[in-house]
């Protein structure tokens, strides 16, 4: 197909990030060079773990609670907010399972600097309707309050406000969905909340699940639409990332051995809130001249020329699919993409577009063959896919989940692995935030350190927080402030952090 594009739309879509850069200035201007560097990997069988330019990590006390939640390099500090169970600005308790998160607005309010984030709560089901996020509030939009089998869908979203370096509020913004995992920010001040489920079930209210929904930055001004964006597909969604230059979205799917990278070409070329509901064209990635290329075991820096194949019916039911690797459970979109020759990945997860490059992770871990996670970079100008990080050891990278690119061009990923798998000696005792080097290696930026007793948590007012050793639970939702000064990130156990420090000492 030919990718024609209206230049006025380009200007509109790019306007958001350009305006942010103009308003906040600073090191964001360096982005182009550093992203280019990120593809300068040195060919090898696999990636290696290197020494962090930021230095070794050590426990650092949270400026909010005084608890050493994480380990960081010297000079970095952080504030926590929105712990599971904390009462939010709307009087509701903060839900748990903090997952994908994005900055949807960054602006000046008077002389104050304000950032609005939307956070996913990757909750699945409950037999108790009271557990539906915002269930008790009519002003919180909810997709489905019906039962599927004997359970309600209790996943959803909260919006957070960060002003002048302080957390100042949060509130429930959407509910009634199943397991929103990674998600992604639009360029017009909203968030896509993506259900992670491949299911043909229909709830008591006649709803199916596995869709994408759009959440505005301020739901007191614009309530979230309860209509799914059907044309983005019904599948075990993970991330969605927009290319500001074209308005195309790139989507990942956590469906083991039955997924590819998707792209969505919206019908509404102007963008804007609810514009994606006007539909569009869903496509799957295919390696050029190779039918159903198996991309689960690349070597570092291996490249593939790619093209896109259509998914004609994005809302089609899933089924068992017979593939070159045996029978797999597949979504309707993947069944169609596969039939048209789409590639095979292990389990795609995090996705980010920066300066014409789509970065995405494959988080699959297997012992034989040794797989502990891959990160791919798709150059949109050349349509060349490159394996910029190939972990065959849990020490190097343990199931890379969400990822983000800093405004300076550094690639950061959140580990979401277990303790079993290739390279698990010495024992895996914690999950990390790791950085991909321009040459294709990795280094540790931060280490999980959450291990507190009930008494310790109660003493700092966190009565709803989980006690015990949570060091091996995942990191999630990493995203930098547009000026690159603050990294926002979640501990899945139920804490949101804002980290700052000497970023210039390393590649982030």
């Amino acid at each position: 197909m030919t990718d024609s594009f209206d230049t006025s739309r380009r200007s509109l879509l790019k306007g958001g990030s350009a305006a942010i850069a103009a308003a906040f200035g600073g090191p964001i201007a360096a982005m182009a060079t550093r992203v280019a560097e990120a593809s300068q990997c040195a060919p090898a069988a696999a990636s290696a773990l290197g020494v962090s330019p930021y230095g070794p990590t050590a426990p650092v006390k949270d400026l909010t609670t005084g608890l050493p939640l994480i380990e960081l390099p010297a000079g970095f500090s952080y504030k926590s907010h929105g712990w599971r169970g904390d009462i939010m600005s709307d009087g509701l308790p903060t839900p748990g399972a903090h997952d994908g998160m994005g900055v949807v607005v960054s602006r000046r309010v008077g002389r104050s600097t304000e950032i609005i984030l939307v956070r996913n709560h990757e909750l699945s089901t409950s037999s108790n309707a009271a557990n539906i996020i915002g269930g008790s509030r009519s002003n919180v939009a909810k997709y489905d309050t019906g039962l599927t089998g004997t359970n309600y869908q209790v996943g959803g979203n909260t919006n957070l406000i960060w002003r002048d370096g302080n957390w100042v509020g949060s509130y429930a913004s959407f509910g009634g969905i199943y397991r929103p995992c990674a998600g992604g920010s639009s360029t017009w001040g909203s968030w896509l909340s993506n259900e992670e489920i491949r299911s043909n079930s229909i709830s008591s209210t006649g709803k199916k699940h596995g869709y994408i929904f759009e959440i505005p930055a301020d739901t007191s001004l614009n309530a979230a639409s309860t209509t799914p964006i059907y044309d983005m597909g019904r599948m075990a969604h993970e991330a969605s990332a927009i290319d500001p230059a074209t308005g195309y979205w790139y989507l990942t799917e956590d469906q083991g051995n039955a997924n590819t990278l998707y792209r969505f070409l919206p019908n509404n070329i102007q963008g804007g809130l609810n514009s994606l509901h006007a539909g569009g064209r869903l496509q799957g990635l295919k390696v050029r001249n190779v039918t159903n290329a198996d991309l689960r075991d690349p070597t570092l820096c291996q490249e593939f020329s790619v093209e896109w194949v259509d998914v004609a019916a994005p809302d089609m039911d899933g089924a068992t699919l017979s593939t070159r690797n045996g029978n797999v459970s597949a979504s309707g979109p993947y069944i169609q993409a596969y039939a048209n020759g789409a590639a095979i990945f292990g389990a795609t997860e995090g996705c980010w577009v920066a300066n014409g490059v789509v970065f995405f992770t494959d988080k699959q871990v297997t012992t034989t063959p040794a797989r502990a996670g891959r990160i791919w970079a798709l150059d949109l100008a050349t349509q060349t896919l490159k394996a910029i990080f190939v972990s065959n050891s849990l020490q190097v990278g343990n199931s890379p989940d969400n990822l983000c690119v800093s405004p300076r061009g550094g690639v950061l990923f959140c580990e979401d692995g277990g303790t079993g798998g290739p390279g698990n000696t010495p024992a895996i005792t914690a999950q990390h935030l790791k950085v991909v080097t321009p040459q294709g290696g990795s280094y540790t930026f931060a280490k999980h350190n959450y291990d507190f007793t009930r008494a310790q948590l109660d003493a700092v007012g966190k009565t709803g927080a989980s006690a015990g050793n949570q060091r091996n639970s995942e990191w999630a939702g990493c995203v930098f402030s547009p000026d690159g000064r603050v990294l926002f990130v979640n501990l899945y156990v139920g804490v949101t952090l804002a980290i700052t420090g000497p970023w210039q000492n390393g590649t982030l």
Partner: protein
Amino acid sequence: MNRAIPPTHTQQITMKPILPLIALLGAALASSPAWSLSFEGAISQGATAVTPYVDTGLISFDIDFANTNSVSLDFRIDEDDLLQPLALNAVLRNFTGLGLNSYTLSLDKGAFGTIGSVTRQFGGTTQVTLSGNQLAQLSFNTPEYLDIELGNALGTTPGAFNWTLTGLQAGDRVNLTVSVGAVPEPEAIALMLAGLGVLGACRLRGAKRSPQA
């Protein structure tokens, strides 16, 4: 070099007499003017931006530092009010990408009066040192990567209170220069250590030669 353009009109607001003392002092003091100020411009380098917020009785501004070059601001005192202090507040934003050790504020006229609050976004302490009465250095115990609020610029920070200036009167033109003290970058530190190493090697070589001399 950037020169911020002053507002097209001078912000002049006449203060209502608020102190009973004024009435007691009779007609002479009743006609006493309020502080009235004009922002005359600022000089900065590169992408560093200055936004003035001059108001009655208040010198106020924001500086978005994109580099470590000093910023020079000029104000004119149009009218004075000897019964009220002239207040000062500011927001200093750090977009340099560097950790800052200090800010230095220097006046070419008048003097710092009350030393107001300094609020750092991620905490940490600030030591304010006056050299004479026209130079104030704000030294941080840990490098500052974010913004600081000088006085009560944002109006929302609990306990924040403004700085004051003294010794100024109608007709004065006052220059306030804000300088940045940055933590050396790793490359600079490496260069410095390399230089020290060379110096040490030279000294060692000299020491070895001395006995032979």
